[in-house]
């Protein structure tokens, strides 16, 4: 009797439940492998294929008009500066608005009706397709020529990118400030600081790391966006040479990839791969940087 019950307690791999278990585990493992595969493939193609077209000329020259001449295809210089300029414009708009809005939600109106509405609106705005942001800016800025008579412009492109950055920045600011313990606020009030002083000197510095993580992620998303730019900033093959050029068409890496990938010429396709290389390296480093900042002693639910 005793030996038989002991026998029943041993692990039998051939039991249906154990076989089923193993099959499901292998299935899950293969799903994980399939999910990682595209990343590895895309990154290796972009690095190998795109990286092989990178040289000093590609980085600096202006792209030539499409044609099949591999030697005079030019480079992606204006697109790099254009992407940089438009993300800077987008940041100048969206960082104050986003951080300000987040401060209002977390510090002034924690659970009021208006705050709930704004949080809901932020989530909805985050779900608005990026091309709609482009259509919206086209309708209010490009087609009305409201910006000193200019139509397609780098500024319009930057504004449409700022709409996409806004929800991420508001959300991360709101959540980062909510994680700052209330003791710090009470202590600041206790020694007589005003609310502005408290926010400026206590809670914002305490939440600084998490907020910068959010801003970097938003920047990374904006720098890679194409859809809002194709009919706001359009594309340009030339460097900007003066401040006025901000009010004219402006090239960007992402639009360059889109335009040149669909050209039938090998030379343009190579420039598209080179631009993808720059863009992917830029975005991956922004992402890794933001992760690293996020680990630098930010307040988290577990730590406080």
């Amino acid at each position, binding site marked *: 009797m005793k030996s038989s019950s002991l026998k029943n307690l041993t692990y039998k791999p051939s039991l249906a*439940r154990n076989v089923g278990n193993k099959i*499901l585990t292998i299935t*899950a*493992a293969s*799903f994980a492998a*399939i*999910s*990682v595969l*595209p*990343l590895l*493939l*895309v*990154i290796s193609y972009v690095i190998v294929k795109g990286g092989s077209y990178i040289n000093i000329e590609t980085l600096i020259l202006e792209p030539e008009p499409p044609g099949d001449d591999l030697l005079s295809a030019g480079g992606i210089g204006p697109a790099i500066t254009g992407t940089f300029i438009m993300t800077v414009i987008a940041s100048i708009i969206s960082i104050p*608005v986003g*951080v*300000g*809005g987040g*401060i*209002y939600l977390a510090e002034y*109106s924690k659970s009021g009706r208006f*705050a709930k509405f*704004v949080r*809901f*609106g932020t*989530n*909805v*705005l985050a*779900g*608005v*397709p*990026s*091309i*709609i942001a*482009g*259509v*919206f800016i086209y*309708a209010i800025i490009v087609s009305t020529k409201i910006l000193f008579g200019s139509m397609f412009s780098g500024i319009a492109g930057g504004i449409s990118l700022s*709409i996409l950055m806004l929800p991420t920045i*508001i959300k991360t600011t709101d959540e980062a400030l909510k994680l700052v313990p209330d003791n710090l606020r009470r202590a600041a009030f206790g020694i007589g600081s*005003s*609310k*502005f002083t408290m926010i400026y000197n206590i809670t914002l510095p305490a939440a600084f790391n998490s907020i910068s993580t959010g801003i970097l992620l938003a920047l990374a998303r904006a720098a*890679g966006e*194409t*859809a809002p730019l*194709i009919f706001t900033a*359009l594309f340009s093959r030339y460097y900007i040479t003066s401040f006025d050029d901000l009010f004219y068409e402006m090239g960007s890496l*992402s639009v360059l*990839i*889109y335009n040149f*990938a*669909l050209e039938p010429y090998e030379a343009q396709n190579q420039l*598209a791969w080179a631009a*993808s290389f720059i*863009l*992917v390296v830029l*975005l*991956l480093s*922004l*992402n890794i940087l933001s992760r690293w900042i996020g680990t630098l002693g930010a307040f988290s639910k577990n730590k406080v």
Partner: protein
Amino acid sequence: MPLRVDKATTSLFLKRRRPTSEKLVDIGFKNFVLAMASLVAVVLFSIFAVVYYESTESITRYGLRFLFSSAWNPVTDEYGAFTAIYGTLFTSIASLLIAIPLGVGTAIFITENIIPKYIRDLIGIMVELLAAIPSVVLGLWAVFIMEPFIRPFLNMIYEIFGFIPFFGTEPLGAGMMPAILILVVMILPIITSISKDSLDQVPSNLRQAAYGIGATRWTTIFKVIIPAAISGITGGVLLALGRAMGETMAVTMIIGNSNNFSWSIFAPSYTISSMLANQFGEADGSQVSSLMYAGLILMILTLMVNVFAQWIVKKLSLKYQ
């Protein structure tokens, strides 16, 4: 020993008021952040208002007929977005059906202790980095690498199952199927990372209790862990659906951009966003208004999905904490 303060000091403290400048800064700052928060609401409302206003011409002209007609003829001014709406819904739902098992399976695999933690963390980070790759780069990859690679397989399916209308045309490059596959790549990270977060939050007591009464790992997962995390998983899936509907660049580059309606998943097609990306630049007059109408439909679709996602997360979330 009580602190003794003489009268002069007390009155000094009582007289000390906050300086007016500090008060002004305080009030000014409050109003500034209030204005910034309101700006979000203003932007959201004006997006809807502007897109609606720009599309009124087409709305009054075509009404609901717009949804069911696949005419798109700038010469005769006859527009209908049926192909694009069908394409949007079909590609996003089909990609979702492929991505749900892959994403949730991956999330389960990296939250269970099947393999060492650092490998699981690595997989998690890699899937999240996949989300950082811009869609235009995925489109480029899809056009030059993925589509030529899968075409023989699609051709095989066409030769064997060609009599079924869904596979009824020969795959000649760009088409709906490559678009569905690239959408899977784009929404996988969303489903995986949100599912992983909600699986991580299931308290370990539940798992231990299930193991204690003799459940196997996968019985525990299916009967205990997934039901406990279902709100987060559903929310993630719906967010992914919203993203798939609005996704523009990669789809535009690979779907073939044709307004001819076809049941076949190998034929070129349209989604609302690819139609906007493709035509908006050159459109004028009533075509702009029709494109805006299509954009409005896209916004309403994604809005419904997103609101439903937020609602279902609230509704289904079990309070374990």
